[in-house]
């Protein structure tokens, strides 16, 4: 079935962003459809993280429009932005777990703060459900410092799932993890997509992650998307910027 205009979860047009004299994004355009996982691939410093921080409203673009779930995110007032963010999950590169809280408190935090009338038993039920979905029920009373990198990512994913988002933004979900754990996180991303019917934008430079989790891949370089399509289509080119990226990451992943 072909996606229609109404199925668009994110629409970005002509996006520009610079920091002082450094122009990071130069007229980007992107469309994400319902139920789709798109991958934004690119080297470190290519502006991938800036892009998703603009999508969630943490950064403001210099020009261009960003529509998320049919709302122009940078034209919303504070209350409207909070309402919209309830529908968006965000997994940070280093998970950003609250280190003074246990896993349970980390996961229930967005729910407790946003659904103030929810009963304790319903909150506990929701926490157990998402921890079960990410396979971490046995660490519920541990602190982030006691968790491995992979477990931290899982808790981060559980925390984004607790509000049942329609859109999830993943910032380098497999960075800093060993290949086996990367594989587990990739499978988890796919499981989340199936179980919670989410759409996702996954920022990564990990080719295995891109291949396993992406329905469509966009290659970001020098502030613009160079190529897009499925994995084979993107890398079927003689463009040195693309082949160089592929070769570098292929060697790196083989070394790992």
């Amino acid at each position, binding site marked *: 079935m072909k996606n229609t205009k109404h199925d668009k979860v994110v629409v970005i047009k002509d996006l520009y962003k610079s920091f*002082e004299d450094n122009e990071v994004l130069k007229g980007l355009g992107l469309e994400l459809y319902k139920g789709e996982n798109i991958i934004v691939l690119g080297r470190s410093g290519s502006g991938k993280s800036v892009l998703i921080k603009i999508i*969630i409203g*943490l950064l403001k673009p210099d020009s261009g429009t960003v529509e998320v779930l049919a709302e122009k995110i940078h034209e919303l007032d504070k209350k409207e932005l*909070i*309402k919209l*963010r*309830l529908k*968006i999950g*965000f997994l*940070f*590169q*280093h998970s*950003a*777990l*609250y*280190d003074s809280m246990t896993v349970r408190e980390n996961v229930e*935090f*967005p729910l407790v*703060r*946003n659904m*103030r009338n929810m009963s304790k038993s319903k909150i506990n039920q929701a926490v157990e459900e998402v921890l079960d979905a990410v396979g971490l029920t046995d660490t519920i009373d541990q602190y982030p410092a006691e968790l491995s990198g992979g477990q931290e990512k899982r808790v981060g994913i559980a*925390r984004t799932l607790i*509000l049942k988002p329609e859109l999830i933004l993943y910032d380098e979900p497999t960075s800093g993890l060993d290949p086996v754990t990367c594989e587990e996180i990739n499978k988890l991303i796919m499981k989340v997509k199936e179980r919670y019917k989410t759409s996702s934008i996954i920022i990564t430079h990990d080719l295995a992650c891109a291949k396993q989790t992406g329905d469509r891949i966009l290659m970001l370089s020098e502030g613009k998307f160079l190529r897009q399509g499925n994995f084979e289509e993107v890398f079927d080119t003689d463009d040195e910027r693309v082949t160089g990226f592929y070769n570098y990451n292929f060697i790196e992943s083989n070394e790992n």
Partner: protein
Amino acid sequence: MPILVRKLLFFVSNQYIMLSGSQRTGKYLISKNLDNFFIDIRELTRFTLQFFKEVFVPPYELQETIRQCYKLGYKSLFLITSTAFITGMVFTDHSRPSLASFGATSWLPSFTGVAVIKALAPLITSLICAGKIGSNIGAEIGSMKVTEQIDAMEVSAINPFKYLVVTRVLATTFMVPLLVIYSGLIGLLGSFIDVHRNDQTSFTVFMYDAFSKIGYVEILSSLIRSVFFGFTIGIIGCYKGFTTTKGTEGVGRAANSSVVTIMFLIFLEEILLVKFFNPFYYG
């Protein structure tokens, strides 16, 4: 009047920043430090105004505020107890020879009473809190900033300013005056032990003498000053934490800078507030 002052401050700092263009071009009107000083004043004013804007708007984080009161106030009790006790005792001990030289050791209770309640308790307690609580807040929020925990709150539709800043500033504003009262009493206890050891004065007589020269104005002045000091500790600690940059090095700098700025401001406020209250003391 405050609106006029605020507008003037914004105008001056904006004009200065516009003229210097420091952030964009790396050129400074006078010097980098002076430019940053003006930027800091402008941002701190904005931060403080945001506090007053957020504090009255629901949802109220009552549970978190109480938790912060316990964490910042109750957990400072041991340090406050020991320093207040020693200060009271040592101050009395050092004052004794001067009073003894003209045969006025019987004035020691009222003398130390006035010194402890009017000056030592508010100032020393606030300075200790600046070191303990101010650095704690600066480092805690600073580390949350550099590890993206504050961003994580924001994207989870939680207002980090309300949850982190409003609760801590309310806690310090409420707890520092309580700690000052407590520290005053413990300081007087330390003083009593020294007086009792030397002059065998009873507790009742000591306390009667100690409070003989202290009226409501003195107590109220100390409490009002400590409310200002508590607010300063909270707002500066949070501001320094919230504006932390450059990773773990920045966290250390935030903690250090919190303490230095708070201490400087406490002394500045002390001078101004004492000048303000002086006419009330002496009619």
